[in-house]
């Protein structure tokens, strides 16, 4: 056997020989039998009963890239074309995704400044526009918006138009419930909007 013996320099240890390595070397030298002459025939006989091995996908790919697989030229061209299609498709898909996200309403704009600017002050003009006409009924008297005195609410809700949407109630007793339930109360905008009035 032509293998050189173990050298401590293999492990970059510039020192005396390793005693364990020496013992292992001595052991390997002492156990150096040869196989029986028919071992190769027995192995090949066993292999003849085995199905033919197949290249695993990753090994096939490695062989392909190394140019060792059968038909590698056509296959390499196919792989290159498929890679190109994947790259182009990925770029197009990414662009489409960006476009779709950009088209979504409200995306990219901050909603709060728009709301604040839309409600500078309590406006009684909203009252008629959002007051529904209650279904007339003989026993139901719709309340008149003008009769109720709108009081600015203390709430500082910013979406006053939506939250104050009145629900028409069929009041059988007109004396008690006509004010708060049906008449929207104009909300007093927070100080952010009121600050405009200071100037």
């Amino acid at each position, binding site marked *: *056997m*032509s*293998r*050189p013996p*173990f050298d401590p320099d*293999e*492990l*970059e*240890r510039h020192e005396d020989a*390793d*005693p*364990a*390595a020496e*013992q*292992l*070397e001595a*052991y*390997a030298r*002492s*156990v*150096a*039998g*040869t*196989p*029986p002459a028919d*071992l*190769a025939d*027995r*192995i*090949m006989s*066993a*292999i*003849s009963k*085995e199905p*033919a*091995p*197949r*290249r*695993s996908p*990753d*090994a096939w790919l*490695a*062989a392909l890239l*190394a140019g*060792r697989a*059968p038909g590698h030229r056509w296959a390499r061209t196919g792989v290159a074309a498929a890679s190109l299609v994947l790259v182009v498709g990925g770029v197009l898909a990414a662009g489409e995704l960006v476009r779709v996200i950009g088209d979504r309403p409200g995306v990219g704009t901050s909603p709060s400044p728009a709301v604040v600017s839309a409600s500078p002050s309590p406006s009684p003009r909203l009252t008629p526009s959002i007051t529904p006409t209650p279904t007339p009924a003989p026993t139901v008297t719709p309340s008149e918006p003008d009769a109720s005195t709108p009081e600015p609410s203390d709430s500082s809700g910013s979406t006053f138009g939506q939250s104050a949407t009145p629900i028409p109630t069929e009041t059988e007793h007109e004396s008690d419930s006509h004010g708060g339930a049906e008449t929207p109360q104009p909300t007093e905008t927070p100080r952010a909007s009121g600050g405009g009035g200071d100037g």
Partner: protein
Amino acid sequence: MEAAWHDGAVDDRRIADAVLEGDRDAFRILVEREQVAVFRACLRILGRPADAEDVAQESFVMAYRALGSYRGEGPLGGWLMRIATRQAYRRLSQRRETLELSPELPQASSSNDPVHATLAGERQDAVRTAVAALSEPYREVVALRFFSELSLEEIAGATGRPLNTVKTHLRRGLERLRPLLGQEARA
């Protein structure tokens, strides 16, 4: 690779490609080239020629079955030797279980040897047992280096580990072997 004695990596790839393309007889080239090294590695691990023959044959058959996973990144001999080493240690662990179940089983090797041979046999048993007692990956690296006689570069190629990692594993394996071999005071 200075210390490589399993040379001819290009030929290894040709052999593997030929076998994978259906040329079963191409495998015989590998068998005839590597059978001595594989048999010796198995014998050094197992200590019994009959077991070494069996495991060597099993290893070649396993290598043939798994040849499709050989990526040609290292010598085919090193790849085959790793399979053989693993198979030999697997057989050794099975044999230990059998011996534990029937401890009265006689040892075949030292029954009719003279005293000198018996002592030598005991020393060999001690080395085999000490290496077998190492944990992985130290056992594998030590066995591949000293029993399978692969170079460190070949071990790195066969195991897929960086060369410096292989060196570290071998150095630590040797350090762990010292007390097991009764060399604590000398080291």
